[in-house]
Every structure is written in C-alpha cells, then in structure tokens.
C-alpha cells in the first residue's frame, strides 16, 4: 500500500485522511480505541493546517506520509501555509472555555495527550509536523503480491 496521500485544503477532505490512516493501519490489528486516537490526532493537526495555516484555500494542499520505525509509527504532515510556532501555544482551560461559551482550541491538546512525541519544524514556507506513536504488539503485515 502507498504510504502517502495529498488533499487540497477543504475541510470536507478530512475524511480522506481518516480513511487512509484506517486502511494503512488495518493490517496491524491495533486496539480499536488506540486506532481511533491515532486517526483523531492526524485529523486534528490536518484540520488546523487547513483552517489556520492555509485558510481553507483549495489551491493549497496538505500531504500525509506514514512511516513505520520498528513498533513506532510516524505520521508526517507537510504543507506550505503559515508556519505554526509551538512556543506560542497556551494550554486551554476547561472551566474558562465553558464559562466563555467557547468550544474551540482543544485540537493540539488532544494530540499531545495521544501521541508520544509531537514535533513542528519550518523552513521558509515549508512546514512539517511529525507525530510519533508507539503501538504494542504490532504484527508484521502480510506480504502482498
């Protein structure tokens, strides 16, 4: 199976990445809840890239590449939008959000809870976000003709 896919910056395309991650990880028989968490983490970063970094400009795109390093999966998301500076990130506070009737801002928080390592890097307008997740008891995928 191909390990990379590209979508244009339309939120309707989020499900394309979710389906791709689901299919890619299918042979590894990952626990349902963990699999959903991984899909969620990739979805959250992608939604942020589409909305904030690329302002839903459909002429722009986000690329996802999945690599397996032993029992660790690396999900690499690349785009050419506005770079995200992780040093400016402030963790949201639930009581404040509820009181202010504001629901947004939980994406990266979820990703940080789910993934083992989250990295952001930018060079010019080329941005890369790397998400690492180690999954226990990963069987070797069946050989395909």
């Amino acid at each position, binding site marked *: 199976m191909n390990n990379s896919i590209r979508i244009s910056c339309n*939120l309707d395309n989020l499900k394309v990445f979710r389906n791709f991650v689901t299919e890619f990880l299918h042979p590894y028989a990952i626990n*349902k809840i963990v699999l959903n968490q991984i899909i*969620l983490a990739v*979805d959250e970063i992608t939604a942020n890239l*589409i909305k904030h970094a690329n302002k839903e400009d459909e002429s722009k795109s986000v690329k996802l590449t999945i690599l397996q390093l032993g029992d660790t999966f690396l999900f690499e998301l690349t785009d050419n939008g506005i770079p995200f500076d992780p040093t400016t990130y402030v963790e949201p506070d639930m009581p404040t959000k*509820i009181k202010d009737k*504001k*629901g947004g801002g*939980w*994406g990266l928080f979820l990703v940080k809870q789910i993934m083992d390592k989250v990295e952001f890097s930018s060079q010019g307008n080329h941005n890369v976000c790397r998400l690492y997740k180690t999954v226990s008891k990963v069987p070797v995928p069946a050989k395909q003709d």
Partner: protein
Amino acid sequence: MKITHEIREKTITIALDGELDASSSVMLDEELSKPEIMLFNKILVDCENLNYISSAGLGVFISHLQRFEDAQIKLIFFNMQEKVKNVFEILGLDLLMTIVSTYDEAMTVANE
C-alpha cells in the same frame, strides 16, 4: 453527518448519525443554536450511530454547556460507542457531562 430529532413533551432526543469533524460539526452547532431548543428542559443525545468525534464536535457541546446549565436544561448522552466516549474522557468531559448507557437510563437521570 445526519441529525434527526424526536420530540416528546419537554424532551428532545437528538440522534447523531455519522462522523462529527471540523467540517460536519457546523451542522450540529446550527441545530443546538436554534432558539426552539431552549423550550425543552431535557436534551437527550443518542450517540449509537456516532462513529467519530473530533475536538470540533466536542467544542460544539462545550460552547453550549453554560447556556443549557443557566436555563436548567439537562443535557444527557446515551448509547455512546467506547471509542467516542474515550475522546470525551481525554478532555475530562465525562466528569462534566452526563453520559449513560441506555435510553432508559437517560430518561431516569432526566427525571431526577
């Protein structure tokens, strides 16, 4: 994402069918923002066919929570799949929102 509702006296049951992500959560926000919703005193959310929720979907419920609480409207989730409930749990929302197993349980809690 498909959203349907059933009304019985002062209770509205909203059934969510599909995936609630950054794209489809707009629909849910529109549904919960309707002025008529404030006429009910119980909102039951049937999550049996809710296969996925992201922070955008959770955010819709978070943003309406205070308004419902101020109006003394009970918001109760039921029939939630484990993988979906897990996402609520990561944010600690299972402690701030009422999530029960069945419709009967939801009605019992709603009538307390």
